């Protein structure tokens, strides 16, 4: 479903120094997988997630999404694909504080480039109920707990019915019990809704919950 072929990512730090975050990554992710990407900090695992999630272009190599080469596509097409195909969950939750819980969940649908076959508002309300956020719809993100914020973020990732959820240290800012419940939620989505999930983590315990682990060191898969 997602295929990375000889992907390199280099950053120009100044005129002479370049930093290589990803070195010749070749990786295939099949539909329905639950993958953990592990490695020490600075090993390039987050960069891998961002490149895979089309948030950044690789310096070299190609990315295929659903058999289609997406490297070099224009920004509008990439944005549309990101909007429809991927859902993101971050360590910092990354909710927009000036929008309510419900509006945050709805936000991706506002950027949809095709007409949706369902009512996003109805779907958002369902997700609120399902994720135990009832009564918090009109609250602002900074007024709810970290665990609730991460649930809102997951609900937001689901509003567009994505094929794949990319999660960067989703439990990193949560206590272990809340973290556990978030991992339960992700497992359930993978198991029951067949959503492909890639979790980037440095926590071995989190990686244990996934079904396949990819280990990275110095920008390479080992």
């Amino acid at each position, binding site marked *: 479903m997602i295929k990375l072929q000889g992907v390199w990512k280099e950053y120009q730090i100044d005129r002479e120094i370049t930093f290589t975050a990803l070195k010749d990554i070749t990786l295939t992710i099949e539909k329905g997988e639950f993958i953990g990407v592990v490695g020490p900090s600075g090993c390039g695992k987050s960069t891998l997630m*961002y490149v895979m*999630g089309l*948030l*950044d272009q690789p310096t070299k190599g190609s990315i295929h999404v659903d058999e289609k080469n997406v490297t070099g596509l224009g*920004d*509008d097409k990439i*944005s*549309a694909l*990101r*909007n*429809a195909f991927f859902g*993101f969950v*971050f360590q910092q939750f*990354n*909710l*927009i504080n*000036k*929008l309510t819980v419900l*509006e945050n969940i*709805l*936000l*991706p*649908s*506002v*950027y*949809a*480039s095709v*007409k949706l076959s369902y009512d996003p508002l109805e779907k958002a309300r369902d997700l609120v109920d399902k994720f135990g956020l009832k009564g918090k719809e009109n609250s602002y993100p900074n007024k709810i707990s970290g665990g609730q914020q991460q649930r809102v973020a997951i609900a*937001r990732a689901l509003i*567009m019915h994505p094929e794949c959820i990319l999660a960067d240290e989703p439990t990193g800012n949560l206590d272990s019990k809340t973290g556990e419940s978030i991992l339960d939620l992700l497992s359930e989505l993978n198991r029951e809704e067949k959503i492909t999930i890639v979790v980037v983590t440095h926590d071995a315990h989190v990686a244990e919950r996934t079904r396949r682990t990819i280990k990275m060191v110095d920008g390479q898969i080992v």
Partner: protein
Amino acid sequence: MKYIRYLVFTIKSAFFDFSRSKGRTFLTSLGILIGVMAVVLLMVLGLGLKRYIEQQFESLGSNLMYVMPGSKATITRGGGIVGGIKFDDKDVRTIEKVKSITYIAPGYAKAGSTVEANGKTEIVEIVGSSEQIVPMFNLEVEYGRLMEKKDVQKGGKVIMLSTTVVEKLFDSAEESVGKNVTMENQNFKIIGVIKSKGGGGLGGGGLDDHAYIPFKATYSFNPDKKFYAIYFKAENKDAIPQIKEDVQRLLERRYDKDDFSVLEQKEIMETISSIFSIINTVLVAIAAISLVVGGIGIMNIMYVTVTERIREIGIRRALGAKKSDILAQFLTESVILSLIGGILGLTVSYVIVFFLQSLFPAYIDAQSIILALGVSSAIGIIFGVFPAKKAADLTPMDAIRYE
């Protein structure tokens, strides 16, 4: 539905940011407020002045014509009225013979003169003419009587003043009739008080500060017994072209054709209007500079806003916002910011114009409103586009990782 939600989210997000930094929003809008106010008020002032002058001319009645020194080209360029040749009684008698002229009167004018009575002084414009000036300028008597033929023939030291002037010199306008005033070191007896033509209040009294005296009475301070203009009235509008031609032909026997011009009131009004339009355009253009400065203020703040919200931009991009969506969001914000300034500027202008109305016919027309709102929106777009572009061009990953 989607677009409505899109718009609601964008506008809501803009207002959220404004309310979080109210002081900053106000100060930024203030630049536009002042700019819009300056432009609107100058436009209003220009229009009001033009209207005021038109009203003054209209109050003189229609079909009024003039002979003035200087060629038409120099007069319509706004110069040449002062200097050049002067006319005399012989010219009046020549023009008098032209068909379809109902009234004719010489026009000697001396501006900036003073009349004195009861120890009080008023500035007036001396108009030395004949009794025919009365029907020609539609002068109406309030108290006493109007100038008559016998006054003119005798060249008596008699004077007609408006109620506006008389009320400032005497306790009551009615009692002033028959009293003496001093003007140009001579005593003049008030024979009549004429009704106000209105206007004034702009530092000058307009037609109301005219002090009408018989032409012969000007001889003591006008030793060459000449005058600057000849006023006459056409029987009707259709007769004007023929009269113009005849007067032109007759006067050319005596003067060079570039030394004088035969004008109708419409032409003078158009000349003055065009001069005012030019002055006004220049003033509005100068005021528009403050709008540009206001726009730069908006640009500055939008750059700050973009920097403060890089992470938010990153989040939106991760969720699928296109570059154009981010561009639209920040442009909307700068347009709203600018429009707030525009609307406030218009409101303040309204209040000022309301108080100005007692002085002269000032009003804000639809054109000014559309212009003010249009220009402030345009400024929002022009000065918002660079910061918005900066926001849109951020790489989603760099933006979302920005600390």
